[in-house]
């Protein structure tokens, strides 16, 4: 039996930290886009027009009903066939964004529906249009109310971002694998990568709690 050697990890710390940075970048970019996308899907899904609502529902159903891994393959390898040649990072961000936008949309839609009708009426009575009312009055409140749920989705996104390793983005998981292929020490490096994911998540949670506390008074 071979003993554990965690010193090997320190020799590859630059590789792991670079991977961690890519994971952070993937998460931040995809979270941001998935929030915007989620809000858009939520609004489209609440549209009064069937012509808008039905395709949105179909799209949401499609992305909810298929695995992220498959979506990733389709976007990275499949789109090339129709001339869309994305970098692995771009494909990863797009897949993660769309996948989680669909989850966020559900949460945001529930948040919008929960806002009291009186808010809408007060805004409209001042002369604001439907779009202005959504942007200034309804959405800000809805998003605040669903911050915890959206936060959970972000934490899930951070972890799921490891899937992007299979299309070759040198994020944390793939960085660990690279180190393992040179050192043959899977246990040490997977543990190390796990610890780094944990650190990223702790930071994310800290940020989310800040946001939640900052908006407590405004509810």
């Amino acid at each position, binding site marked *: 039996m071979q003993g554990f050697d965690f010193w090997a990890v320190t020799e590859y710390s630059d590789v792991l930290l670079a991977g961690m940075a890519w994971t952070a970048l993937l998460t931040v970019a995809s979270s941001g886009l998935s929030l915007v996308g989620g809000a858009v899907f939520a609004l489209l899904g609440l549209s009064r027009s069937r012509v808008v609502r039905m395709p949105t529902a179909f799209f949401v159903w499609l992305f909810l009903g298929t695995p992220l891994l498959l979506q990733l393959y389709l976007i990275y390898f499949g789109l090339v066939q129709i001339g869309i040649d994305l970098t692995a990072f771009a494909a990863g961000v797009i897949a993660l964004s769309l996948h989680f936008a669909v989850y966020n949309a559900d949460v945001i839609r529930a948040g919008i529906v929960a806002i009291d009708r009186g808010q809408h009426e007060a805004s*409209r009575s*001042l*002369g*604001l*249009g439907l779009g202005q009312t959504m942007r*200034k*009055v309804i959405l800000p*409140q809805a998003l605040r109310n669903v911050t915890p749920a959206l936060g959970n989705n972000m934490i899930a996104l951070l972890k799921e971002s490891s899937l992007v390793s299979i299309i070759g983005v040198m994020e944390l998981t793939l960085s660990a694998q690279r180190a393992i292929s040179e050192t043959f020490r899977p246990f040490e490096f997977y543990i190390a990568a796990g610890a780094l994911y944990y650190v990223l998540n702790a930071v994310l949670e800290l940020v989310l709690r800040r946001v939640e506390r900052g908006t407590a008074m405004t509810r």
Partner: protein
Amino acid sequence: MIQVADLHKAFGAVEVLKGIDLTVERGQILAIIGPSGSGKSTLLRTINHLESVDRGEIWFDGMLVNQPLRGRRFERHVNRIRQHIGMVFQHFNLFPHMTALENITMAPMLLKKTPRREARELAESLLRKVGLLDRIDYYPAQLSGGQKQRVAIARALAMEPKVMLFDEVTSSLDPELVGEVNKVMKQLAQEHMTMLIVTHELRFAADVADHVLFMADGVVVEEGPPAQLFRAPAQERTKTFLQEVFK
């Protein structure tokens, strides 16, 4: 200023307005009273088209409110009219994610492109008027009911409306907070603001209004100056209502 003619409105099979006529002159203060379910709130809400109507006409300042326009054009038309009609609600409906200041300045900044500084000065003067200048940076959650309602009045006034609609604005207040809101409304009355007030508070109506309209079951049963309507009602239905309330 406001003219309503033969207004009909039904919610499904329930007819809530059965042919309402009313006229409000500039500077006039009209109180609308009547039992719950009489349609008085609905009537008020049709004037700025928070409720659509089935039949009849609503004229505001020479413009037909319920124009037969569709889609975006109707939206634009109605948004323009609403800018001139302030409304205050029973449940305040302040925007909880904005401070008192932001609640007041949002609409003028967004719709009239009022510069931030000017909007702030406007908000300050309005908050001074309702006695809440020291609460300018408070969020609604930090205010009492009476304070919320006064901020809501300031918010409506910030658009410099030609008419103010008050929909049972003291009904959800603790009794000891009613006075402060009534005081602000009385002050507006003295400044000759045109006001339509739906209220359960007959004493206040008698005190501040120069015309009172008694509604029941979707029709105007009786109207007239408060002295006449409260002291010598002509209709049996009005008498019973007043007796019930003042019992």
